[in-house]
């Protein structure tokens, strides 16, 4: 391997490649394009994945929302079109009777006029159990979320989103322990969380579930419930089972599909994951195929070059070059152009990703979030290049020494 450090080894490479610069450059285009494609596509795929992850980020993926609507079939003396009301007891029943349930979280939400000092706004208020944090992760910036004591004592405490804080407070103002007015009642702020993504209903502020029931006079009624399944259970089955129980409990026709609405996050997530995996697979496929074509072109051109240099190779052998030295040089040329083309591809690919990021990657609505490729992918690409370059270089290398020196010298 010492020959790699020799200045003359490289001088030889540059000499023979520099002899026909245009051809060398054209040869490199194929590999450059392959790597560029690989980097840009993989980077974009990553960007899309990141943006979906941000969207779903806070939600448990094996979960389904269920809410009540109005019936579409008459049943047991009830007319069709009856508004169905979910009860907290429904949630309890589902939790006890459906197989594979992890959590059932009943939720309620309403609008409230919120005032702090001289600032005010209309925001949504949710009544929640601490369990919510398990199914829809609250990323706390300061303080804490609702806890069991808040529930037990019907406390007037509230956790607010960063967005609300910005609207109701002066910049950098202290807020933990501060009071805000919610429909005229004072609530103490216990925590602030990151504003949720745009997947599903995001929360402005959360108060204890029991407090909510009390101030809005909800009794046992709930707005909707979030059900999460254990990882090994199919969330679609859980959804179906839960709805069946709900129809039974609420005297709804067993085949009434409209009485309860639902949104199955698990199913949506699966679709997207499948799509992303497909996209990545396609990217690798296209990239590698292009790369192969590019490397093949290099091999082909080197084969032509070697043929053109038959006489020169004959002269070198007359002067004492061993077949191994000749082969080594040809392989080195192959690896060298492959690698250089690849590096240029990686660099231009990276630059394009940076451009894409600055054009489409900014702001909370961005389609691509942090479109980039990891160092390991760059390494994989480089390794593939070196291996392919070596392999393809062996063909012209063997061609170069297959002809006897005397025949090579006689060549005109």
């Amino acid at each position, binding site marked *: 391997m010492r020959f790699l450090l*020799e*200045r*003359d080894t490289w001088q030889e490479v540059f*000499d*023979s490649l*520099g*002899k026909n610069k245009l051809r060398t450059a054209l040869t490199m285009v194929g590999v450059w394009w392959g790597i560029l494609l690989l980097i840009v596509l993989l980077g974009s795929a990553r960007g899309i994945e990141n943006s979906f992850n941000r969207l779903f980020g806070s939600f448990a993926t094996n979960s389904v929302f269920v809410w009540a609507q109005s019936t579409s079939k008459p049943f047991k003396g009830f007319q069709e079109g009856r508004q169905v009301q979910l009860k907290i007891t429904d949630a309890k029943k589902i939790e006890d009777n459906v197989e594979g349930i992890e959590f059932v979280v009943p939720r309620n939400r309403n609008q409230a006029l919120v005032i702090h000092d001289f600032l005010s706004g209309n925001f949504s208020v949710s009544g929640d159990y601490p369990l919510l944090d398990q199914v829809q992760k609250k990323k706390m910036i300061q303080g804490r979320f609702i806890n069991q004591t808040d529930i037990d004592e019907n406390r007037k405490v509230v956790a607010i989103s960063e967005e609300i804080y910005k609207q109701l407070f002066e910049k950098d103002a202290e807020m933990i322990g501060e009071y805000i007015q919610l429909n005229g009642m004072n609530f103490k702020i216990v925590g602030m969380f990151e504003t949720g993504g745009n997947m599903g209903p995001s929360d402005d502020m959360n108060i204890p579930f029991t407090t909510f029931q009390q101030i809005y006079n909800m009794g046992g009624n709930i707005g909707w419930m979030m059900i999460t399944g254990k990882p090994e259970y199919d969330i679609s089955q859980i959804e179906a089972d839960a709805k069946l129980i709900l129809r039974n409990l609420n005297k709804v026709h067993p085949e009434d599909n409209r009485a309860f609405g639902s949104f199955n996050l698990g199913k949506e997530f699966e679709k997207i994951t499948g799509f992303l995996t497909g996209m990545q697979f396609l990217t690798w496929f296209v990239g590698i195929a292009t790369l192969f074509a590019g490397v093949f072109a290099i091999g082909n051109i080197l084969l032509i070059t070697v043929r053109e240099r038959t*006489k*020169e190779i004959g*002269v*070198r*052998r*007359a*002067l*004492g*070059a*061993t*077949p*191994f*030295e000749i082969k080594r040089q040809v392989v080195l040329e192959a690896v060298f152009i492959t690698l250089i083309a690849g590096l240029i591809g990686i660099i231009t690919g990276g630059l394009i990703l940076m451009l894409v990021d600055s054009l489409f990657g900014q702001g909370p609505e961005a389609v691509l979030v942090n479109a980039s490729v990891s160092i390991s992918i760059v390494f994989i690409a480089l390794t593939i290049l070196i291996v392919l370059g070596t392999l393809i270089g062996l063909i012209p290398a063997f061609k170069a*020494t297959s002809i*006897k*020196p*005397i025949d090579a*010298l006689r060549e005109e």
Partner: protein
Amino acid sequence: MLKINKLHKSYPIGDSSLHVLKGIDLSVEEGEMVAIMGSSGSGKSTLLNIIGMLDEADEGEYILDNVPIKDLTEKKAAIYRNKFLGFIFQSFNLINYKNALDNVALPLYYQGLKRKERIETALFHLEKVGLKDWAHHLPKELSGGQKQRVAIARALAANPKLLLADEPTGALDTKTSHEIMAFIQSLNDEGKTILMVTHEEDIASMCKRIVRLKDGVIMEDAFVEQVRASEYV
């Protein structure tokens, strides 16, 4: 220095074969300057190429500097060529994208010398052939005679025991040919053993011994009074 016994060589031509060398016996001592002559197709180049290990004989014995040359692998042949032999071709065979200096330094590269040594040695030999000032010129910027002198410098660079030249003056005009011959003679005066193929009588007469080939055998082998090329220059 060199000893050949009953050397045979045939080339397959279609189904039959062409018997080119039919039992050559030749021995050359150190310091000799031998011209190989003969009509076109008589096998002069074939003989020289076998001596130069660029080609292999079918039969017979070849001993170079007490080393029997037979069953050579390509690698071994390359090493012997590099150590023992210097080649001068009719068409110069310089590498066109390398300047004179790098051309001369090439055999030294394959000898594994360090770059600095190579450049020094190559410059020394370029100076010897009177082309030091042309070291950084490409072959296309040189005249035929200059190119052949670069080629001679290259053949000398690795300090070979034997110089092999196949019609070294074949592509040159008479005046330039004589200049080149004068230089080759001076190398021989210094002790270098030289074997050259030519079909020009006046060039052959500048050697010390003339071997004539005909129909694949040596027809005549005689020592001659050497004509000094400098007389013509």
